[in-house]
C-alpha cells in the first residue's frame, strides 16, 4: 500500500523511519500472537474434536434398536425412559423437541407399569396436570402431594435411585393422552433428538482440567482476556521505551 506520485507518503508496510519500522514490527508480532491465540486455538479445537456420546446415548442406542425391532425387554424400556429424562432435564431443550421426548417417556412408563395399576396412574397424571394448571404457588399442598406421588411411584419402575436428580423431572414429562401408543412422529424424530442433545464435540483439550475448568473453557474465557491485557501492556511499555530512546515526545 504505497502511493508514490508525490512526496509525504505513509505506508504501514513500507516504513521510512526507524521508529515506524519498530512500530510495524511490533504490530506484526502482536497481531500474529493475537490471531493465532484466538483463531488458531479454535481451529485446533475444531480439528481434533470428535463427536463423543454421553453414556445415556449409548444406552439409548442399545435400547432403541430392540424397541424399534419390536423385541424389547423391560430393561430396554428402563434405559429409554432414563435417557429421555437425561435430555428432558437440560435447560437448552428446545420447545419443539419436548413433545417427542414426553411421548417416548410416557410410553415407556405406561408399559413398565403393572397392568392393574395403569388406570390409577393415568388418573394421577390427569390430577397432577389439573392441579398444576390451577395453582398460584408451587407450595400448594395438593400439588406437592401429587408431584411427589408420581416421582415416588414411577422412579422404582425405571430403576432410578433416590439421589438421582432425574426423579425430579418425572412429573413434568408425563403425558396421559395416548400413553399406550408411541406416536409415529416420535418414532421418526427421537433418534435425531437424542443425538442432538447427547453427542458432544470433545477432545483432549476439553477433557483436561485446569483450575477446575475444562482446559479449553479456561483458555477462552480466562486466559485469552489475560493475554489481551498483556499484549496491550507490552505494546505500551515497548513503544514508550522506544520513544524515550529516540527522544520522541508527544
Amino acid at each position, binding site marked *: 500500500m504505497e502511493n508514490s506520485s508525490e512526496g509525504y507518503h505513509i505506508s504501514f508496510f513500507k516504513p521510512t523511519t526507524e521508529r515506524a519500522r519498530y512500530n510495524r514490527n511490533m504490530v506484526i508480532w502482536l497481531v500474529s500472537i493475537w490471531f493465532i491465540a484466538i483463531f488458531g486455538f479454535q481451529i485446533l479445537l475444531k480439528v481434533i474434536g470428535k463427536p463423543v456420546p454421553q453414556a445415556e446415548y449409548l444406552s439409548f442406542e442399545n435400547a432403541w434398536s430392540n424397541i424399534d425391532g419390536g423385541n424389547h425387554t423391560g430393561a430396554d424400556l428402563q434405559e429409554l425412559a432414563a435417557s429421555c429424562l437425561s435430555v428432558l432435564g437440560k435447560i*437448552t431443550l428446545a420447545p419443539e423437541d419436548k413433545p417427542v421426548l414426553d411421548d417416548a417417556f410416557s410410553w415407556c412408563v405406561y408399559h413398565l407399569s403393572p397392568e392393574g395399576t395403569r388406570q390409577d396412574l393415568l388418573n394421577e397424571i390427569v390430577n397432577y396436570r389439573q392441579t398444576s394448571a390451577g395453582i398460584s404457588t408451587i407450595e400448594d399442598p395438593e400439588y406437592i402431594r401429587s408431584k411427589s406421588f408420581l416421582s415416588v411411584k414411577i422412579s422404582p419402575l425405571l430403576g432410578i435411585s433416590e439421589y438421582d436428580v432425574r426423579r425430579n423431572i418425572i412429573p413434568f414429562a408425563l403425558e396421559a393422552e395416548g400413553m399406550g401408543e408411541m406416536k409415529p412422529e416420535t418414532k421418526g424424530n427421537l433418534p435425531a433428538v437424542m443425538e442432538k442433545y447427547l453427542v458432544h464435540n470433545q477432545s483432549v483439550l476439553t477433557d483436561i482440567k485446569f483450575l477446575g475448568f475444562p482446559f479449553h473453557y479456561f483458555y477462552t474465557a480466562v486466559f485469552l482476556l489475560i493475554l489481551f491485557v498483556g499484549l*496491550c501492556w507490552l505494546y505500551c511499555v515497548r513503544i514508550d521505551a522506544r520513544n524515550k530512546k529516540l527522544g520522541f515526545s508527544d
Partner: protein
Amino acid sequence: MKKRYIPLLLAFVPSTLQAAAAATELEGSFKVGPAIILIAILVLFVMIGIFFRAKDTTDFYAAGRSISRVGSGMAIASNWMSAASFLGMAALMYGSGYHGLAYVVGWTGGYVLLLILMAGQIRRYGKYTAADFIGDRYYSQSLRAVGAVIAILISIAYCVGQFGGIGLMFRWILGLNYGLSVIIGGAVVLTYTLISGMLGVTKNMQVQYVIIILSFLIPLFILTAKFDYFWLLPQIGYGSVVTDVIQGVPLSESRQLVNSLGHEFAMVPAPEFAMPWDPASGQTFFQWIAIAFSLMIGTAGLPHVIQRFYVVPKSSDARWSVVWGLFFICILYWSAPAYAAFGTILSANPEVGKLAKDAIVVYTAQLGSVHPLIVGLLAAGGVSAAFSTVSGLLVAGSSAFAHDLYVKVIHPTARPKSQLIAARLGTILMAVIVTLLALKNWALIGQLVAVAFSLAGCTIFPLFLLGIWWSGSNKQGAIAGLIAGGLVSVIAITYFIAGREGLELPFHDFISYWLEAWYFAIFGAPLSIIVHIVVAKLTKPTPVEIRKFLIENVHS
C-alpha cells in the same frame, strides 16, 4: 449534612429493608427496595454531573483533555459496559454455552487492534468526532455527512439492545409487562440524558464504573461462598461450577444447598454448556469465528469508543488508557460466565420454568437466595450500565446530528442556541425510534448490540484503518469502500428484519446463515477494505496537504 438529615435517612431504612423482601419473587409485584436503590444511583449520577459540569465545548466533548490514564480507563470501561455486557453476555452463555464465549472474546480482543492500530494516532489527529475525522481526512463534506449518519445509525442500533435491557430490568422492578416497561424505561433514560447530557460526562463515568462493577461482583462473591466454591476469586472459583454442569450434580442426602424456591442444587449432566459448537446450541464453528471477528473489528470502529481517545492529554495517555480500560472491562467479562454457570444449575428444576435469558444475571442472584437488597443493587447496576451507555450514545448521536450535520453541512451559520435545540430534538427523535424498535424484541440484547458492531466494522473501521495507515487512501476509495460495506450491511439487516417479521426473501436461509445480522462484518469489512484500496489505486492521489498532515502530525 448535617446531623439533622441523619434521622430522616435512618427512618427510611426499616421500610426499605421490609419492602425489599418483595424482591424474592422472580417476577411479579413492584419491588420498592430495588426501585429506591435505582433512583438513588441515578440521582447520584446527576449530582456528580452537576458538580463536575462542563464549562465549554472542549470541556464537554473532550473533558478538557485533563483526565488521567487510570481515570480515562475507567471512563472507557464505563462507556463500554452496557446492558449487553452486564446482562447480555451471561444470557448468551446461559442459552448457548461455549458459543457465548465468542462474544466475550470479541468484545475484549478488539481492544488490542484498537490500541496497536489506532489509539495514539487518533489522538494525534486531534478531532472531536468520527465524522470530523472522516470529513477532514477524506476532504469531503459529503463524507462527513455520511459519517455522521452512520454514527447516528450505529448509536440507534446500539441503543435498541440497551433499551431492551432497561425494559427487562424495569419489568423486574416495577412488575409491569415488557412493552410498558420499555416505554417507561425509555422515558426515564431520555429525561436522564437531557438533564445529565451536558454535564461532567467523564467524571460521571468513573463513578459509574465503580458502582456497576461492585454491583456485579458482590452477588458473585456471595454465590460462590454460599454454594461452597472457591469464593476468594470467583472468576477462577466458578471453574468447578462449569465442571459440575458438565458432569451433573446428584441430589444429596443432607439437602443443604437449595435455591430460593426450595429446589436442590442439582442437575443432570449438561456437557453442551461447555463443549465447543455443540449441536444442542444450534451454533457452528463458522458462526463462532464470524462473531468473534466481527465484534473485534467493530470495537475498533465504534464512534463512541474512538471518541474516548480525544479526552486524554497525550497520545501515550491514549495508549495507556486502553490498557487500563481493557483491564477494567475484563474484570466484568471474567465474571459474567460465572453467572451463566450458576444460573444453569439453579434454574435446572423444570418448576423454575423458562426464564428470560437476558435477565438471568438477576434471576441467578434471586435463585441463589442472595439478600433482596443486594439483588436490587444488581438490577440497579444493570440499569445503570444501560443508562450510562445510552446517555453517551444519545449524546454522541445528537452531537453527530447537531454538530456534523446541522452546523457543518445544513446550516453553517446556525447560532449556538439553534444548535442546542437541534441537539435536543435529535436526542428525543433517536429515543423515540429506539423505543419503537426495542418494543419489537427481535433478539437477545447481546445480539442486537452486535448488529451495531458489524455495521461499524463494515463502514467506520476501514475508513479509520486505511485513513491512518495509508496516505494513498483517498476520497474516491473511501466512497467506494463505504458503498461496498454499506451494501453488505443493508442486505444483512434487511434479511434480519424480514425474518423477524415473518417474511421469506429469496435465498433466505443462505443469506441468514452467511450474513447473519450479528456477524456480517466478517465479509463486509474485508470487502470494503479491498474495494477501497482498488479504487484508490485507480483514481487521483490524496492531496499533498493531507499527506503532509499525516506525516507531520500523526506519524512523526
